[in-house]
């Protein structure tokens, strides 16, 4: 008898931690588990996986079930099993994340969304799903058992800031640089770029909890494709947020003193190449999460009818956009379609850097992207005060910063919290939890 009973006892205590984020026990044909599974990006989490943005989703819960289809000979065979009672907590970095800490364990699991910008760049985000349960069912053990699933992720919040130092092109032979006899003092457009980066940097590295890619500094020293350091082309594969205050035209924008970064044609453009590959011999693919946001205070960086080439190059818009009319969730891009002047149309005596400053102020406050742009430019009904309206050199009229992609994208707080989810007309997700 003992010889026969031993395998049954052994089977009842079988325990595992596979796949990553799952802790399970099996009793014969009964399986009980604590599971944490990644949803967005899709697929299972992996250890120390880099995640980025305000739309990181996972499911977590205590689950139980009976394997159907019969039982192996000689093993316990149960007809039903249910978690009778238990405690359950879900924590990120030890912090309860808003789910009732004690209660009936969820049989279905909870869906949770959080923002990596709640954590410093590089921080380990530990998600724990703990439970103690008593199984209910004939022959099942009646003593408490504990489950503890745990996942370690890495917050990845990396930004590139680019401020041009170049001024006008008086002869058509090239932009002039500091030190040139005709270089204005103070520089007009480059001065605005300098002020813009100085204004947005503390927001990006502060409340947005990003770090700048190596070599970024104040954004004024980038080189690309030519000798010199730091190299923008080598760093574009590392960032998830791009802010540029520079010069642009319909096919390219200027990255540095020597180069223009071409973004058309889409099939073989420099921007896309640098975004999607990591430099090396041979070059390898991008190893970190995709871009969340691109903002270009530069001429013609979102232009030419429906092509939107620069956002496509950053993978912030799907290539077929706008047909079919779809977007990537929580990814967006903003730029100007025409020639934008450094002075704003309104208010008086204000320059384009102020537009960037105000816009990032709204983003840092957790505004959604479209809303932040509308509020910056006086197009939002709830903002009665100062509108910051850029001016078109071509027509002298307002040239609004426009966006493409997901209008609900944001960089602070969590993407589409519960109330916002309802506001945008989506079906209620009562089993979802939004964390900040």
């Amino acid at each position, binding site marked *: 008898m003992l010889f026969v009973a031993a395998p049954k006892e052994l089977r009842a205590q079988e325990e595992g931690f596979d796949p990553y984020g799952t802790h399970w026990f099996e009793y014969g044909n009964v399986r009980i588990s604590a599971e944490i599974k990644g949803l967005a990006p899709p697929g299972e989490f992996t250890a120390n996986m880099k995640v980025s943005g305000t739309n990181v989703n996972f499911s977590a819960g205590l689950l139980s079930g009976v394997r159907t289809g019969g039982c192996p000979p000689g093993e316990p065979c149960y007809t039903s099993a249910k978690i009778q009672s238990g405690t359950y907590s879900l924590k990120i970095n030890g912090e309860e994340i808003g789910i009732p800490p004690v209660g009936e364990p969820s049989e279905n699991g909870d869906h949770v969304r959080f923002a990596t910008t709640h954590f410093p760049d590089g921080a380990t985000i530990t998600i724990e799903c703990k439970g103690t349960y008593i199984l209910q069912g004939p022959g099942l053990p009646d003593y408490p058992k504990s489950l503890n699933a745990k996942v370690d992720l890495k917050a990845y919040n990396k930004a590139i800031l680019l401020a041009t130092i170049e001024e*006008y*092109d*008086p002869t*058509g032979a090239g*932009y002039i640089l500091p030190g040139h006899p005709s270089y*204005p003092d103070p*520089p*007009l*457009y480059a001065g605005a770029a300098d002020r813009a980066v100085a204004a947005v940097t503390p927001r990006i590295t502060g409340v947005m909890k990003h770090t700048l890619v190596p070599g970024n500094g104040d954004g004024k020293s980038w080189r690309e494709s030519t000798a010199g350091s730091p190299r923008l082309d080598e760093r574009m594969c590392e960032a998830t947020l791009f802010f540029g*205050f*520079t*010069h*642009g*035209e319909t096919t*390219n*924008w*200027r990255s540095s003193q020597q180069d*223009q970064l071409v973004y058309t044609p889409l099939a073989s453009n420099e921007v896309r190449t640098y975004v999607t590959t990591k430099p090396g011999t041979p070059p390898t693919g991008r190893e970190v999460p995709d871009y969340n946001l691109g903002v270009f*205070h530069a*001429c*013609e960086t979102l*232009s030419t009818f*429906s092509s*939107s080439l620069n956002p496509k190059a950053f993978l912030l818009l799907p290539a077929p956009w*706008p047909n079919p*009319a779809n977007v990537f969730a929580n990814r967006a891009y903003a730029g100007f*379609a*025409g*020639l*934008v*002047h*450094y*002075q704003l*149309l*309104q208010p*008086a*005596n204000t320059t*384009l850097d102020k537009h960037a400053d105000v816009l990032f102020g709204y983003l840092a406050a957790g505004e959604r992207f*479209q809303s932040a742009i*509308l509020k910056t430019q*006086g*197009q*939002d*009904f*709830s903002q*009665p005060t100062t*509108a910051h309206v850029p*001016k078109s*050199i*071509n*027509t*002298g*009229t*307002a*040239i*609004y910063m*426009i966006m493409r992609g997901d*209008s609900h994208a944001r960089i602070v707080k969590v993407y589409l919290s519960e109330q916002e989810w309802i*506001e945008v*007309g989506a079906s209620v997700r009562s089993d979802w939890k939004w964390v900040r």
Partner: protein
Amino acid sequence: MGALGLVFAFWGSVGQSELISLTQGEELARRFVQRARKGAFGQIAGTAGPLDLRQATLVDDGRQAAYDFGSAGVRVDRRQAAVTVFHESFSGIDPTWRADNALASNQLSVLANEIYVAAGFSGPLIMYSIDSHGRNGPEGSYCLHLLPTYAGVPFTYDSAVTIIVEHATGRVYTFTVWNRPDPPDSLTPGIGLSIARVLASEAVFRYRPAVTQIFEKHPVRLAIWRPRLTNGGIPDYARHSLAETQLARARQGKGLLVYWTYLHDFGSYRGEMPQRAYEVFLDASDGRALAIDALEAGQGGGTFRHGNRSNPFSWDLGLGPIEISRGRKRCVVEAADVMQCSAPRSKVVGKEFVLRRARLAVFCQFDAASGVLWTTVGKRRVFGKPNANLLNALRGFVR
């Protein structure tokens, strides 16, 4: 009202008798949203949620009220009893631009005026500029830049109305009315439009001697203008000669009667884009240049690839009327033409004048002895030979 949450923010000193009630404002806002949704054809295209008021907020010392209807938001100026800002997010429309379905400019003009009336304003709007293909708004949108009018006279762009609509249906994304000044006492100019055109060009030629060819992007027009002032009350222009009495009017929110135009430096074009542009405001009573705003190279976010040079200037204007002018002296020569020619061998001594063909004005010099005229492009002179009609007129003109 349902879940109305009324926030009495900044309830201030404005007398309530001057303002419409919150309920009246809500009714106006709701009617406006309903009209804006119907676009050009009276039917709602795309998603349109119920107009349940979620929140009403008093702002700007209570002068304005903001009504949140969920997908749509409206701000009402309670003193003017008019909608000044609106925006709505909607989907369910294919944003792809389709030229065959795009509303024509006359349809857009009718739509804009109807929207404007629905907002509570009166007086026709003048279409100033149109951005198509989603260049200034959501994908597949038009952005309409319009000038409000008073007694038939438009306000300058500082008082513009902008409306962004879906290109095929005219459903409104945003509607924005900017502040406008009180009109001047008199709307009768002291000089005519033709002289004003000449004076506006000459104002730029004087301000920037390097500029010798001007293209009228927006033609000269009579307008009501309140000079843009900094917080310190200083005019915010590259150059101005506003009198203290005029500045005092501006500080009181009152407008001046001006001739107003937006000009490109034709010689600064790179492809189709100008590197330099000038906005000119002339006193409508005497033609004096009150202010020039300069948008010049190095001040914008544009870049141009090496080799993308300026458009070369060339004579060979083709037969047609040409206006010649110097100061207030002007005449129009019918059937005039200028043909490109090489520099004469003899030394030329020129007298200055402005030649105008349609929307292009060229600062020229004419040498009566050799019968050639020329303009300067950078350091280079470009010579032309006038036809007989123009030659005769020029000889008489510069005498």
